């Protein structure tokens, strides 16, 4: 019996959410301790007895058993959730209360409630994301710190502050609350940022970043399964995650080198995710207004529809970027728009579009800005300029993979510009 990848991480999220419902949000740390205990037991028992047929069920049964012990032991020292308190005060057995918290549908709801709790408006967005990753996705502070290129101590502090805020809420967010819609927007935003960190982030740990994307998608799908949260905007978010995540297998080639979208071996795109993304995108059109996520998903869908970079409908993509820029006038959107214009109208037009980016100072430290100039210069036959731009980009590289990628570009333009002179 093999253990599925990330089983513990995923189960940590399920179990903490279920235990928190029993213990109350104020006892979040206790819930985490119980989960840790269950993992310890697995570490002691599985090597001797073998891996159980259903490892997730074994962990849940162990945590459930431990939860009952803890409630009995700490009944006077702590205040548990109202359902538990009632049983403790009036006698009777805890089993039905605990069974209910661990039932399949309940675990889904508890995860949703935890997600809404973590995205409390009092918390900054980066704290919300750190909490989601820690509490719902089972990432440790050190792992989150590595993914976000933040020091471990700073991340521990951020998580601790977030948990303190959570604990002071006392109980999980009520999905029937009047704040539901506002909170839903915060949850979606946090999941989007989480996904983007995985997709575009600076950390060189590509596997960790792929995990962030997978978890953001898992949680976004969970939102989509809950009817009041399954709005067109949620569909657009899931669509854009699916369509981008589909490309992840092709972002690095077999030799481990980073590939641009233009160079991707598209046969390595995940077709199932593309299909899911397209179906979601279609459903997202049911709404009355178009959001940035609709447009980002539509751009990704246009790429997914093309067999090759050359066969891409760049006309459509440029027009989608025009609309996206009208909603989100960020220099990164302008950069991508300029790249699309370069594909549609040739490198000279692309360079003009790059020069026209109003606040390009904000992306001057982003290595793919000078790299885009380098690509266009190279295509225009100006190898000397390409060499200078790629060298500038290389100096800004944020991790080993980017350095390797840009070093190859520098080398390519150098050998060419030597031939030229």
């Amino acid at each position, binding site marked *: 019996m093999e253990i599925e990848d*990330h089983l*513990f991480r995923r189960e940590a999220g399920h179990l903490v959410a279920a235990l928190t419902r029993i213990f109350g949000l104020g006892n979040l740390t206790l819930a985490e301790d119980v989960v840790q205990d269950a993992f310890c037991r697995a570490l002691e028992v*599985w*090597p001797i007895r073998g891996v159980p047929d259903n490892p997730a069920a074994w962990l849940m049964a162990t945590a459930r058993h431990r939860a009952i012990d803890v409630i009995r032991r700490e009944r006077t020292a702590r205040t548990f959730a109202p359902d538990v308190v009632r049983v403790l005060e009036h006698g009777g057995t805890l089993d039905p209360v605990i069974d209910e918290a661990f039932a399949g549908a309940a675990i889904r709801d508890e995860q949703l409630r935890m997600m809404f709790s973590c995205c409390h408006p009092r918390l900054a967005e980066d704290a919300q994301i750190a909490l989601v990753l820690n509490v719902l996705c*089972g*990432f440790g502070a050190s*792992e989150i710190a590595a993914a976000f290129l933040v020091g471990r101590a700073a991340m521990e502090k951020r998580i601790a502050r977030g948990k303190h805020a959570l604990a002071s809420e006392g109980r999980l967010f009520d999905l029937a609350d009047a704040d539901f819609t506002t909170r839903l927007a915060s949850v979606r935003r946090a999941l989007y940022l989480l996904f983007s960190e995985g997709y575009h982030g600076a950390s060189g740990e590509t596997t960790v970043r792929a995990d962030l994307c997978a978890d953001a998608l898992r949680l976004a799908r969970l939102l989509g399964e809950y009817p009041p949260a399954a709005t067109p905007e949620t569909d657009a978010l899931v669509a854009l995650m699916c369509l981008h995540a589909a490309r992840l297998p092709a972002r690095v080639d077999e030799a481990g080198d980073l590939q641009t979208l233009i160079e991707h071996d598209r046969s390595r795109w995940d077709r199932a995710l593309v299909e899911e993304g397209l179906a979601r995108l279609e459903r997202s059109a049911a709404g009355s207004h178009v959001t940035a996520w609709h447009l980002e998903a539509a751009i990704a869908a246009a790429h997914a529809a093309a067999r090759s970079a050359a066969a891409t409908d760049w006309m459509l993509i440029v027009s989608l970027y025009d609309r996206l820029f009208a909603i989100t006038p960020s220099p990164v959107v302008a950069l991508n728009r300029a790249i699309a214009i370069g594909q549609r109208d040739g490198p000279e037009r692309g360079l003009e579009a790059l020069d026209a980016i109003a606040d390009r100072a904000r992306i001057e430290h982003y290595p793919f800005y000078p790299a885009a100039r380098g690509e266009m210069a190279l295509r225009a036959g100006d190898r000397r300029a390409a060499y200078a731009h790629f060298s500038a980009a290389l100096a800004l590289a944020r991790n080993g993979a980017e350095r390797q990628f840009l070093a190859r570009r520098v080398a390519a333009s150098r050998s060419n510009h030597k031939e030229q002179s």
Partner: protein
Amino acid sequence: MSEFVLLFRSTPEGRRAAMGTPERAQQSLQTWLAWIRRLEAQGHLKSRGQPLDPAGKVVRKGTVTDGPYAESKDLVLGVLVVDARDLDEAARLAADCPIAEQGGSVEVRPVGSIAT
């Protein structure tokens, strides 16, 4: 072939490090499983032993304390029995036990023979 008991010891810190994060715990578990499977495949695994529950008591003359966690810096995590030609081979088998990576140690003890 003779029998040897492998006695696994660790410290509370070592155990916590092996558990670290859920991902780390799963990796620790997988290295243990792989190590035991290797022993088994090579025909050295005599007995998988018994899992030890961490909660227990320590009994001394006149006192019984909850333990071993409450006081011990040196925890016995478990035992297993291997078949090996001699003590040197048994020690070699123990050498790549993952507990070494987790701040712990393996004590290798020949099962005493009783002269008949």
